[in-house]
């Protein structure tokens, strides 16, 4: 458990340092995820212990969004002023993404037989 947590934190730290050093506009934890992914590819499997710790953490993932989500409190005026374009944007963009991704994949998978 602790070893796995150390691995996760170490990957995150490496990711953060990488981003900071190269001044990339990319979140450090995502680079950490790529580092861990490459590590798993090299190893060829997932260590059991890491799998258990990661699953435990990911099962509680939703809870981890709450503190940041509550921050919407500080943007209530912004939401009040722009609720219409914001909701239009979310609805139309979500439907468009579903349609384009689905239609393309269905069409291309047929071609690629």
């Amino acid at each position, binding site marked *: 458990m602790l070893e796995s947590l150390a691995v*996760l934190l170490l*990957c*995150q730290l490496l990711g953060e340092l990488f981003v900071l050093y190269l001044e990339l*506009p*990319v*979140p*450090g*934890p*995502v680079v*950490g995820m790529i*580092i*861990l*992914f490459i590590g*798993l*590819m090299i190893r060829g499997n*997932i260590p059991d212990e*890491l*799998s258990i*710790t*990661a699953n435990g953490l*990911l099962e*509680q*993932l*939703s*809870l*981890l*969004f*709450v*503190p*940041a*989500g*509550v*921050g*919407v*409190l*500080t*943007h209530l005026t*912004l939401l009040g002023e*722009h609720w219409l*374009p*914001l909701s*239009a*944007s*979310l609805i139309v*963009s*979500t*439907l*468009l*993404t*579903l349609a*384009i*991704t*689905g*239609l393309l*994949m269905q069409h*291309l*998978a*047929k*071609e*690629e037989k």
Partner: protein
Amino acid sequence: MDTRVASLWVYLSASPLLHLTLTVCFFVIARWLYRKAGRRSWMNPVLVSVLSLVAILVITDTPYEVYFEGAQFVHFMLGPATVALAIPLYRQCESLKRHPVALAVSLLIGSLTAALSAIFIAKLGGVSEQALISIAPKSVTTPVAMGISETLGGLPSLTAVVVILTGILGASLGPWLLDKLNITNPMAKGLAMGTASHGIGTGRAIYMGDVAAAFSGLAMGLNGLATTILLPLIWGWFMK
């Protein structure tokens, strides 16, 4: 108010323990309600607990900074949890071997559609640049989307809320739309759900069968990577 009760409140409102406890308890209750209500997507426990906590803070006149003093202990785990997403992504990589070109093209176009259409529509409505970049990663899984938003100068808290709303929209409207458009291929259905509406959409795609679920999970991971790389480039071009 009784002075002893008043002094208790003074202690509690200054201690990080109160808001940490409230965060965890509200989430546990919201999740219980969600399960009781048959896991309906609009009862999403994150949305319900966020809205209830916002109401409590407004009523008690508590500034967000004070709340965050306590909640930061939960928030901190978001980083290691994002790193841990490498594990499900690695597991789903088997699915990549089927139709790799079709998958890559559909995913990239889907990812660009999600970000660009959100930016353009909101821009037409006169939304500020900071809000635009906050909603651009709306289809990406929450921890990654918040990271992207913060890195590009957006408001991560606004991102968290629009990401969850997008997930709910995709999970509720997705099956209907895919059916209307005659999208029957399970790979296509899964890919569309995961690209447009991340984990919440993937939760719905599980009911479309194993293939759709695997492709949805894979799409969610890959869309996070694609948006992380593409959005800074698009944004740089857009700001010119």
